[in-house]
């Protein structure tokens, strides 16, 4: 029966011709191909010394942002934790005291804010959920470590450096 797509090819098993049975022409051709690769640029990136350039929308380590006055933007609303499909984010909210006005933007802030980098799938949904533009996945690759507990990143690792330190 004729096939509908007409893409079918009947495989013919011919015995090898004399030149093919000699192997040598084919071997010479193959060796020409491999030697030509000796002069090609290697694809390897020497990783720790050289880093590959990421695309503009690469999602790396999270950072908790500060506003233009250097106050923390996060208000511990919990939307990021709620949106997180991997349940990697936990936080404890606290009320801002009067003398802490220069540290936190709103009356409520995150006293602890933890992301488990082993759970995180870097989907970026926390970034989308945040109403205060407080969290972005704009960091580098999360580095490897030896212990599970060291993958739970607290505020010490996540919050952006203060303004004066940045300069």
């Amino acid at each position, binding site marked *: 029966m004729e096939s509908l797509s007409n893409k079918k090819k009947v495989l013919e098993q011919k015995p090898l011709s004399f030149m093919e049975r000699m192997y040598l022409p084919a071997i010479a051709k193959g060796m020409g191909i*491999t*030697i030509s*690769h*000796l002069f*090609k640029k*290697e*694809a*390897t990136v020497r990783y720790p010394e050289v880093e590959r350039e990421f695309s503009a929308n690469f999602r790396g380590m999270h950072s908790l942002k500060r506003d233009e006055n250097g106050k923390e933007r996060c208000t511990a609303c919990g939307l990021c934790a709620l949106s997180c499909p991997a349940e990697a984010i936990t936080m404890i909210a606290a009320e801002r005291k009067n003398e802490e006005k220069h540290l936190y933007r709103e009356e409520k802030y995150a006293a602890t804010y933890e992301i488990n980098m082993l759970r995180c799938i870097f989907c970026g949904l926390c970034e989308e959920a945040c109403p205060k533009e407080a969290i972005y996945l704009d960091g580098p690759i999360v580095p490897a470590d030896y212990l599970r507990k060291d993958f739970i990143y607290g505020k010490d690792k996540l919050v952006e450096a203060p303004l004066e330190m940045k300069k």
Partner: protein
Amino acid sequence: MDTGFIIEKFILVAVIFGISLVVAMYSTYAERKVAAYLQDRLGPDRAGPFGILQPLADGVKMFMKEEIIPASSNKWLFIVGPGLALLCACIGTAVIPWGSPMEIGGKVVPLQVADINVGVLYIFGVVSLGVYGVMIGGWASNNKYSLLSAIRAASQNISYEIAMGLSIIALLLMTNTLSLKTIVEQQHGWHWNVLYQPLGFLIFMVCSFAETNRAPFDLPECETELIGGYHTEYSSMKLGFYLFAEYINMFVSSAVMATLYFGGYNYPGMDYMATLLGPTWAPLFGVGVFFLKIVFFIFFFMWVRWTIPRFRYDQLMNLGWKGLIPLAIANIIITGVVIAIIEKF
């Protein structure tokens, strides 16, 4: 036999032994580098500049690893196997003429450990002994894969030794001698044997690939079928010995190929260089040229390995018995006829 002679030979043996070990060591490094560059990669580059210390790191790793001798193995043979493989690989270098006689302080020193008049036969004997290391190791492991691999190695070596021996007969018809030193001296300047025996060289080279268990004839150790082959059960430096023996074998067969067919330490313009450099340095230059040829052949071994896929076992046997042996016999007949005609007229 005076003391000077013994000291001279002892130094020569020590130097050649050291050089062959270093060459084998850096062949492992070169193999990985060549493989990498042929596949658009970089290869080992972490240990030292350009990874030059990689063989040392590998050696330390081999020595430090836990050594396991299987409980059901034949312990004595299990230990003898790798030692025999390495020994047979190393003693092949004894009859190779590394350079023309060199003059040191008014004394002429031949750069060859032993100029025996059956040098070619000695090489053949040692090379065929080499398979005993593989066979004993494979047998003593008490493992089906190892045994299969040992059988493969033995039958492969036997099949290809015949073609190898036949290909060399055509050469011997021309040289009229079995001494490697005389064979090299006959190839003075440009008169390399490969120009008169191209077919013989081709057969000899293909057989050397099979004898050294190198790809595309590495059936005794093909991972996909036999796990590790004869060294499946080996660990630590015993495994290292087997791998090392393979590289020394490669070095020796490169040296033999260069000696028999590519003129050994001869090169065009060597008479001019001899008058220019004097009787001490000109032979050393010849040794350098010889090593250049060896390095090229080692590179060729690797180049072939990273190009050609492995033969199937029946293809291997077909090629050996139905391809190379008839070709070698035809080569003998043609050479004999041509020599007879030349002598007649």
